[in-house]
């Protein structure tokens, strides 16, 4: 082996190989660092509410043209079915709205003091209602309607209106004691009902009545009208799932709240890391070609020697071996140095970030090491095959 190496190392260009090592070091370092960084940082954007039920409320944007022409946006059954098929969806519920006229009033007519306003009702399937109350039921024909108001309304009154007007602040309990006078008109009928506020919702930003009531009342007061749901409530497993953001962007749906910020950041991070890793990959591929080119040149310059070795009885495998070992050694060197550099850099950013985000660094380095080994094996096997092929070419050229 020594003599063969002594012979075949002729014409090895240290500068070329050094160029390869540096270029490949850059490429592999960027790829591995990108991967490690993603593994370390992604948990920051993930909610700790993993596997907890989360709800998103989707709507379509209101267009200016639609406002002017009076067009209504809504979700068709096809769109709802499509949403149900997405991997991140657990279940989908539709908001139904009242198709009849509602006037709500408060006060005591016997004292001649009353206020009344036109209003509307909406409903969602009961499973999506976050207020658990035994009163949240409706018996067909009953004159008493349970109502859930958004918590925001109470807050607006208590912390906005009441404070500035020196009015008393009201608790949920006090409001629940109030009763609303509700008049419903439609289909040639007009009936009075009593509205009972049974709770306040953090999730649903609307005046909510039980779905069973709305179905019955729509049927009774507006039998011909059938409107598409304008909003959907979506139950998801993980609101930081980047697929949700992507899907909603593609479909141009809007969502309430900031549940998706984590998902957006994860998605953004993924894109950023993909770009960086892509650049690393390009550098690696180019440096790989540099190595192959350098080895080709070496083989070319040593063709005569290789030919003679083959002629005195050396097998192509034996002749290729020194160059194969050389490339494997270089690849090993590059991968080891890259892993070392990534660990050094990781140490720095984990120290820097772990104060603010304790989850940084919890993921470990397994994936990065696996990627490094896979990269090493892939490149080395490819190098080995190319060199063997080239040596066989020399053999057959002679034939």
């Amino acid at each position, binding site marked *: 082996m020594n*003599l*063969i190496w*002594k*012979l075949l190392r*002729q014409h090895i260009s240290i500068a070329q190989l050094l160029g390869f090592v540096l270029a490949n070091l850059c490429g592999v370092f960027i790829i591995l660092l990108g991967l490690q960084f993603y593994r370390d940082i992604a948990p920051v954007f993930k909610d700790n509410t993993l596997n907890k039920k989360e709800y998103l409320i989707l709507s379509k944007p209101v267009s200016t043209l639609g406002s002017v022409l009076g067009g209504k946006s809504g979700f068709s059954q096809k769109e709802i079915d499509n949403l149900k098929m997405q991997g991140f969806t657990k279940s989908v519920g539709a908001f139904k709205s009242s198709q009849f006229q509602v006037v709500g009033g408060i006060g005591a007519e016997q004292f001649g003091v009353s206020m009344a306003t036109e209003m509307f009702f909406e409903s969602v399937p009961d499973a999506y209602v976050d207020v658990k109350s035994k009163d949240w039921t409706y018996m067909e024909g009953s004159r008493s309607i349970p109502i859930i108001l958004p918590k925001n309304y109470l807050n607006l009154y208590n912390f906005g209106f009441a404070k500035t007007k020196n009015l008393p602040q009201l608790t949920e309990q006090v409001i629940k004691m109030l009763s609303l006078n509700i008049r419903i008109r439609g289909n040639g009928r007009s009936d009075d009902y009593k509205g009972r506020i049974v709770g306040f919702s953090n999730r649903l930003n609307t005046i909510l009545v039980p779905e069973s009531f709305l179905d019955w009342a729509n049927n009774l007061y507006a039998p011909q009208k059938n409107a598409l749901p304008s909003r959907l409530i979506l139950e998801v497993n993980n609101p930081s799932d980047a697929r949700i953001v992507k899907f909603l962007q593609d479909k141009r749906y809007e969502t309430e709240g900031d549940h998706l910020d984590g998902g957006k950041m994860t998605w953004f991070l993924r894109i950023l890391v993909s770009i960086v890793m892509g650049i690393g990959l390009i550098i690696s591929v180019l440096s790989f070609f540099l190595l192959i080119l350098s080895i080709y040149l070496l083989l070319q310059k040593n063709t005569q*020697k290789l030919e*003679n*070795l*083959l*002629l*005195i*009885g*050396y*097998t*192509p495998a034996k002749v290729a071996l020194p160059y194969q070992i050389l490339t494997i050694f270089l690849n090993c060197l590059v991968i080891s140095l890259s892993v070392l550099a990534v660990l050094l850099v990781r140490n720095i950013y984990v120290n820097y970030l772990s104060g603010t985000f304790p989850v940084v660094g919890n993921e470990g380095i397994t994936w990065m090491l696996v990627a490094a080994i896979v990269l090493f094996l892939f490149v080395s096997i490819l190098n080995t095959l190319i060199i063997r092929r080239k040596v*066989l070419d020399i*053999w057959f050229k*002679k*034939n």
Partner: protein
Amino acid sequence: MESIRLQSVCPTIFQSLDLSASDVWRKNLSFRKGDHYLLEAASGTGKSSLCSYLYGYRHDYEGLITFDEKEIRSLKVKEWTKIRKTSISILFQDMRLFPELTAFENVQIKNRLTHYQTKKTIFSFFERLGIQDKLNSKVELLSFGQQQRVAFIRALCQPFDFILLDEPISHLDDVNAMIISELLLEEIQKTGAGILVTSIGKHLPLTYNQTLVL
């Protein structure tokens, strides 16, 4: 390997030539193990071509060449490397030594592959051929005659059934030619190998069973 057979072999380049005067081209003949053959020819009649066909590194010929009835075009890379290590040895006309290695290393590079000769035997070859002082000299610094002797020693560093010597003494004096003959005969005494020598004038001094004109 017991015999090498040529059936109507002719270099592609000689296709259009009248080769009726040749004892080899377009004829049927066999080289048998144990016999000594002298292939005489003028320059350019295909001596080295014949050696390269028999050694399997050129195939630009018509006709059939068989080793023990096996057509050599069908031999695989692996089979050729085995033949070159154990069955056929060659002294190339252009020697094909490695100029950046020393004379001894040039021999060793073959002997390490075959482990056929001992170091002591190799030294004795160098000594008998009068180049023991060149053992550690780089081949590029040796004269043609000295290189020819190194290449010959290398050719002896393997077992063989046939040895092809392509103008083995073209750069040697009669004394060295004699020593080469002696060494060769001593070696083939062990194995009973066949010898094929080409020559353009000066013959390696041996008793030949057959002289063929190319």
